[in-house]
């Protein structure tokens, strides 16, 4: 597996411009002859599809939802970063770049991150022009807030529904192209496999969710924008359908999987309330701007929060990190919360949370201001828990939220399979070992609106359109494989539901490959995953028929892929014998108890090559060089 990142020459601030000029172009009259398959319609997928459609390509768009607007980007709450420097508080492209590389704990690629910062402002311009109703000040200009540990106010937001509004903007741009005929929408089609012919991605096999029928689709290039894999933990903030199938299937066809163990655990989610828990709900981390996090100073204190006097409370983040306090980065905040709960300071009926308290903020600013800022979040919290956060502190606990790992891509967002691209959360590129708040929306849209539509032109200009159709033997073979696998799942006829396996896998992953990973735990997890996978194939029960709308079959297929993927996550966590960002190996800590990197041995991207189910995958490395940001130990004291 060759890993050539294809980073353009020149000073970092000029790389993208130089690259834009040096890339080949497709003649406008020829663009319609080229077809592109776009899988996924979240921020990255919808924006890329719309823009490529505008450019004149023939874009075939796929989603397993009933409408492209349902993609999980819709649920992003907090905001989107951009180096507009509208607040004149010292922001710049370089500062956003610097913060992102440092926040990722020096495990991301400098050139990609700089490009992201450069494009961030264009995204805001684009969204506003589409009618995205960002928050505004009384003078009519855009409002900003500081978010997720940033020391400048560069986050644009639309109440707590920024993802929804940005996605609807991209969705509407896509619907416009559907009306124009440049994009063709295929709803309720789940991608089951990639078709690679002579080493080049030429199509996909999908399953029609309504009818169960398998379909073949051919194109000159395939772009995956299929999101992250947090649901490997079963309980996560991801939507129920989010899964790893598309990227995993691409991996099995030759696409390297990069840094799969880099998963983000978000510090502010509502703790589980019982065994039946189906997912976890995020409370935007913007709440940490005004809320104070604390636990009872004495372990096992069961008094109502209002009855615990100030001096018997431990505002532990303020204590550990006087300058960042409650805004300490996500990985650090999550880990500290776990420490507190593990040490017996947990709050709530199940003692599985910490308090996020708005009492001081309400006293300082009044209930009206707090309600204006967080009203919808408070209402959501009350619906779920039955508790009123204006009166009693919220209870929060970390939950899997985002996956920095994903398919390895070069600077052009192409995977190790020519013609196969990955954008948004599905790729690994920009966030390193830890993603900063309000950076996911930025990356998805930068990839979708501004990078993919340009770099795909460079690829397409080098290939002849068409030449293969769906009668090619490779399509027949891959479709046969998909059909056989579905047949095998249906024919097991065991006793356990697919969800029962997903729950069990999630527990293994949360305990051994979650916030804290040890070598012994990971080795044990790999063994247990193998056993669980075997049990799945011997004992899963999927009622109904394959050629029908069958939600159990959909779930079982996704769980089967998670049962293969989970192993490579553990191998990756095991091989990365250092702590960095969200990847925490207790064997490697500083004297202050923080993640201790090993730059000499691990300043690289780990890229895994598939060698067979249940076999140890092969590790390749892309070495990272830092020319513009000095490697330093993160300190948020």
């Amino acid at each position: 597996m060759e890993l050539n990142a294809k980073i353009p020459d020149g000073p970092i601030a000029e790389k993208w411009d130089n690259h834009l000029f040096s890339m080949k172009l497709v003649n406008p009259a020829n663009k319609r002859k080229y077809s592109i398959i776009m899988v996924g319609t979240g921020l990255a997928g919808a924006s890329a599809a719309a823009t490529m459609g505008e450019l004149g390509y023939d874009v075939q768009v796929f989603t397993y939802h009933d409408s492209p607007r349902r993609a999980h980007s819709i649920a992003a709450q907090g905001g989107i970063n951009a180096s507009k420097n509208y607040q004149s508080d010292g922001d710049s492209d370089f500062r956003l770049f610097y913060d992102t590389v440092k926040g990722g704990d020096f495990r991301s690629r400098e050139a990609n991150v700089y490009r992201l910062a450069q494009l961030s402002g264009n995204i805001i311009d684009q969204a506003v022009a589409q009618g995205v109703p960002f928050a505004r000040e009384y003078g009519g200009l855009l409002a900003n807030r500081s978010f997720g540990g940033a020391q400048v106010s560069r986050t644009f937001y639309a109440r707590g529904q920024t993802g929804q509004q940005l996605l609807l903007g991209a969705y509407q741009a896509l619907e416009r192209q559907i009306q124009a005929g440049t994009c063709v929408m295929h709803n309720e089609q789940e991608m089951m496999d990639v078709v690679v012919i002579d080493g080049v991605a030429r199509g996909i096999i999908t399953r029609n969710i309504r009818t169960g029928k398998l379909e073949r689709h051919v194109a000159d290039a395939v772009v995956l924008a299929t999101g992250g894999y947090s649901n490997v933990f079963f309980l996560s903030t991801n939507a129920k359908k989010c899964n790893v199938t598309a990227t995993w299937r691409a991996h099995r066809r030759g696409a390297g999987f990069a840094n799969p163990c880099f998963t983000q655990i978000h510090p502010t989610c509502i703790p589980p309330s019982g065994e039946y828990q189906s997912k976890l709900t995020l409370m935007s981390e913007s709440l940490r701007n005004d809320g104070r996090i604390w636990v009872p100073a004495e372990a096992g204190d069961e008094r109502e929060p209002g009855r615990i006097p100030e001096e018997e409370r431990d505002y532990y983040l303020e204590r550990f990190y006087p300058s960042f306090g409650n805004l300490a980065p996500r990985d650090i905040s999550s880990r500290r919360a776990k420490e507190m709960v593990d040490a017996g300071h947990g709050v709530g009926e199940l003692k599985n949370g910490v308090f996020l308290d708005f009492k001081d903020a309400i006293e300082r600013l009044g209930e009206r201001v707090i309600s204006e800022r967080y009203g919808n979040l408070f209402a959501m919290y009350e619906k779920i828990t039955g508790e009123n956060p204006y009166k009693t502190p919220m209870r929060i606990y970390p939950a899997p939220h985002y996956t920095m790992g994903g398919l390895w891509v070069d600077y052009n967002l192409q995977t190790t399979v020519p013609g196969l691209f990955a954008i948004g959360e599905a790729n690994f590129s920009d966030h390193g070992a830890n993603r900063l708040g309000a950076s996911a929306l930025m990356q998805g849209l930068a990839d979708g609106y501004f990078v993919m539509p340009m770099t795909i032109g460079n690829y397409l200009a080098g290939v002849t359109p068409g030449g293969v159709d769906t009668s090619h033997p490779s399509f027949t073979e891959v479709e046969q494989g998909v059909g056989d696998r579905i047949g095998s799942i249906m024919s097991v006829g065991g006793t356990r539901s697919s969800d029962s396996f997903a729950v069990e896998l999630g527990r293994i992953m949360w305990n051994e490959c979650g916030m804290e990973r040890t070598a012994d735990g990971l080795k044990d997890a790999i063994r247990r995953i193998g056993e669980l996978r075997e049990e799945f194939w011997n004992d899963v029960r999927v009622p109904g028929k394959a050629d029908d709308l069958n939600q159990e079959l959909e779930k079982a297929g996704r769980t089967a892929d998670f049962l293969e993927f989970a192993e490579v996550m553990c191998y990756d966590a095991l091989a990365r014998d250092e702590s960095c960002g969200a990847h925490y190996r207790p064997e490697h800590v500083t004297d202050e108890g923080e993640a201790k990197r090993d730059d000499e041995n691990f300043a690289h991207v780990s890229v895994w090559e598939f060698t067979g189910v249940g076999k140890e995958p092969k590790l390749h490395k892309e070495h990272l060089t830092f020319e513009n940001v000095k490697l330093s130990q993160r300190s948020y004291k």
Partner: protein
Amino acid sequence: MKLKLHIWRQAGPDVSGQFEHITADDISTHMSFLEMLDVVNERLIADGKEPVAFDHDCREGICGTCGMMINGNPHGPWERTSACQLHMRAFKDGDEIWIEPWRAQAFPVLKDLIVDRSAFDRIIQAGGYVSVRTGSAPDANAVPIRKEFADDAFDAAACIGCGACVAACPNASAMLFTSAKVSQLALLPQGQPERYERVLHMVDTHDEEGFGNCTNHGACQNACPKGISVDNIARLNRDLFKATLMDRPEEAAV
């Protein structure tokens, strides 16, 4: 709690359906409504039966995927709450719960509680956007927008496209959905150039898809999980009236 559920079962779009009566024991008040259905489904699977098909995804009340009539109310008894955010605290031991799919000609039932809402996408395709090419936007602060207008636009833009308004309406009208997008864009300077073509095209498509007319019942507003106001329908009607008095503009170039 022990509940008596009456759930609509329908094997496919072309066959008739009926209620299935299921007793659900040991339901915790902490569960969400959909978690209660998960538990019921796990038990059906264990008994070798087919689980109830229902649409859902984010379970945070924002994706708009879930939707069902619960005791005759779209999304159930709580105000401004989608079915996934409804919790079993809303019910008590011994309650009977009738669960049905959205009922509307324009939303055909696909299976059990799942309906086809693709008509909503086609209404948006008819003009629910601003025609701005990627990369051609002016600086975001070039056009200041009065905060009140921006806030009103936001209130309209909060629609999640779930279809509760249609299910609540005695005419199965989708005017609340359509007007929310029309209003959002009509309130913003960016939406002005296409304002009148937009309302004409979207309303035409709305009618062609088989949704009924609005007769100002207001049931849609009560059912809406996002609190979208019928004021938006008034705005739409004002723009529609103006647009019909104007020369019908040429087909907008896209």
